């Protein structure tokens, strides 16, 4: 019943990998080349482990779930940010170039410190439910419209992989720009009636050029988001919403 989609004879794959260990004194960024034989169903996860085992035990990269779920393994694959674990080598040419995500602090080779960056972002945007009321959890929960719950989940699916940041032109120019990942998070909380923050509160967080007004809608982000989040429409929605608030209190407008 399944298509045996990889039935051709084994290809030789050539990997060009950007190597650099900032913890190693005197080390300098360089491209290194590895050659391995492709196996059927091979993903970049399998290929990189093969290289580490058989060619260079010091090669650094991050995988956790190896199933496209956790967001650990984002890297620049042939020039485009993506998740390495769910990329089948069969979908690529025989010469494959891998580099770490830009913007994030480099740990070594293909491993970057996205966790740290995301933590900072979450702190800054306070990505949690803001509510004062005490609940009694023995009582039946507050109802929520089923469609609304689905809509929130749709945005909650972001895995903080950092692809959208690596693919964003604005981030290159504005270091503090919160990127699509940040804007999507605000859209998620803005939608959630459990979070009691007002639109004005959100305006204070993102109503400037490091926030929603910094985005140039070039849409690099939506193209590379492995979860296919509707980033474009959400950013547009937020921009309209925030513009309205900005106009109500013009002193806040800063562009």
């Amino acid at each position, binding site marked *: 019943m399944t298509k045996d989609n990889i039935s051709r004879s084994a290809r030789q794959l050539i990997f060009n990998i950007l190597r650099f260990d900032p913890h190693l004194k005197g080390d300098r960024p360089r491209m290194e080349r590895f050659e391995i034989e492709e196996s059927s169903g091979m993903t970049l996860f399998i290929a990189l482990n093969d290289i580490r085992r058989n060619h260079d035990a010091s090669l650094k990269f991050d995988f956790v779930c190896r199933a496209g779920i956790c967001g650990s393994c984002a890297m620049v694959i042939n020039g485009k940010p993506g998740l390495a674990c769910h990329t089948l080598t069969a979908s690529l040419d025989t010469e494959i170039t891998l580099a770490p995500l830009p913007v994030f602090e480099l740990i070594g080779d293909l491993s970057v410190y996205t966790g740290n960056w995301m933590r900072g972002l979450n702190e800054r945007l306070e990505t949690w439910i803001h509510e004062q009321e005490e609940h009694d959890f023995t009582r039946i*929960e507050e109802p929520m419209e089923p469609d609304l*719950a689905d809509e929130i989940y749709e945005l909650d699916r972001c895995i903080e992989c950092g692809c959208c940041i690596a693919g964003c032109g604005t981030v290159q120019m504005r270091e503090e720009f919160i990127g699509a990942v940040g804007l999507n998070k605000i859209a998620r909380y803005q939608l959630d009636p459990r979070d009691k923050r007002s639109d004005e509160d959100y305006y204070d967080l993102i109503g400037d050029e490091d926030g929603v007004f910094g985005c140039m809608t070039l849409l690099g982000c939506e193209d590379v988001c492995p979860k296919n989040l509707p980033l474009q429409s959400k950013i547009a929605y937020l921009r309209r919403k925030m513009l309205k608030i900005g106009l109500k209190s013009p002193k806040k407008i800063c562009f």
Partner: protein
Amino acid sequence: MKIIYTDVLVIGGGLAGLRTATGVKARGYDVVVLSLVPPKRSHSAAAQGGMQASLANSAMGEGDNEDVHFEDTIKGSDWGADQQVARMFVDTAPKAIRELAAWGVPWTRIQRGNHQAIINTESVTINEQNQAHGLINSRDFGGTKKWRTCYTADGTGHSMLYAMDNKAQEQKIDIQERMEAIALIHDESSNGKQRCYGAVVRNLMTGELSAYIAKATTIATGGYGRIFSVSTNAIICEGIGQAIALETGIATLGNMEAIQFHPTAIVPVGILTTEGCRGDGGVLRDVDGYRFMPDYEPEKKDLASRDVVSRRMQEHIRKGKGVASRYGDHLWLDITLLGREHIEKNLREVNDICKNFLGIDPAEEWIPVRPTQHYSMGGIRTKYTGESATLKGLYACGEAACWDLHGFNRLGGNSVSETVVSGMLVAEYIADYCATIESSIDINSDVIEWFIRAEENKLDCLLNYEQHHQDKSPPPEDAYKLREAMETIMMDKVGIFRNGKDLQQAVDELQILLQRSKNISVRRSKSKAANPALENAYRTQKMIKIALTAAYGALLRTESRGAHSREDFPQRNDKEWLKRTIIQWPDANKTLPEVSYEALNIMKMELPPGFRGYGTDSTVVHLDSEKRQQAIKDIQDEYHTAGNDRFSLQNKLMPYKALLPPKYRGKNERLNERFDDDQG
């Protein structure tokens, strides 16, 4: 030497660890959470299907309550679970899920009116009542009487973990990622008891070692699935938490042989497709496209308990009904009958996984699946409070622990539920402990330094083998090879069906590997800082020990119970084996741990052992079972005639409320069990 002091050290940033941390923080204690990876990438994020809690909101959940959930859990465990712990769990689960709802989890909600569902391959209409509209929905899962598994599409673990980590950030909890605990620091305390004081921790970016000293140390490091070559687990589920507990020589592990195989992981990579596939109406098929489960299990069919379905699949493959492939035989999971719309909405991760890893469209094509290692029921043995019975100040919870909710088989959906519930409860017991004088830190800094030096020395041996072995004998070993050998032994000899001969071989071979692992030399990568080869080396040494505890426990247990299935001892033997395997490794020079057993007392059980309802009953019965059955019947009769409610009857059978922290003792409200408003 860097020493960090805190009240509570939590090792592990998954659901269990984070919920423990938020709990102790809310009680006013300082806490540090360590994690190998950013907490949101912990394995908990991979849970797809859902979380069990007896809310009874949905039409198919009607009539559900703690009693039904309790019975399902105990039967599922094949009577191996601790029944008081199970009671505490089912009572707290509804509170846990409602708390998560308030913290932001977008649980899938009930839509009033008629819905089509697939049950037993037929389309059935289900009507949801008005008053349930907007409440948390639930789906069917294996081994449960009611539809009890609450979910957010099929990203349940992800949405739970995100809400939990966000909560931890709101509380400004000190979370340190890319930090690995590699040894526990312990000593005799001033009152003469063995006491845990924290851990030696390695920074995975810089290689720096430091000591974290705490009143209470909690291990919440998840399972040990990666001792097998194919597993649904994330690659960081390597059992290091259990190993560092074992290496104290004092703390004990429980039921390490109890390992679950999930029926539907994709072939060959072992990535899971959730039980929700079958819960929502999908079925298993063989090489002829024939739906075979009803032949084996006429009542529960494809939704029998996990251990049962996995065994039946294996049996069917052995009969020659598997689909041959270059990766060995497999079967099919057919969800085409659910329709594209349902799959793209409620089984989205499954859809993605099929497309990305198999290149197939599950709305049109069948999915190649095979039973695969999935869950560790065994773990660090604790009391109901989460504290080790033998090492004061050491706590464990979540999949890392064996407090023992799951016995020999865990029900789907009970695990993420357990992580949160155990975190909530254990946090309270820890906070209580921290308030006592007994918890004050009375460790000598020489001892701390000794532990750090010892670890430094071990790492140095791995990196500079030649200096430590001038005469070049014994020959240096390659950690990757030893690890692969261990994984293969576990796959081939400690799998779904086990037998004495294979298990003995496994134990023998693992002992040799353990010896050889003392001579590992890290090649080609000598950095002390971030160094994957070094990490693999010291983890392999620890993992072989964990593999041995599982294989040895399995060899000694000459019966079949839950997921532990012995071909040479196919019967469940309550007479001799209604007991928990307890493992301790007091002498580090020996190649085998010490094993003892902890009997389960039938006369105190609320649900004495009986027939689980699968296949034919061949149990070797314990004499007490019937006695207890009769005693329970007498109590029930007396209570029913006196017109008492289910709570007081339960309390008469097996009291447990007093064990719960006072704040979690309240009854749970349901649509059919409304509180009077003055009560709320």
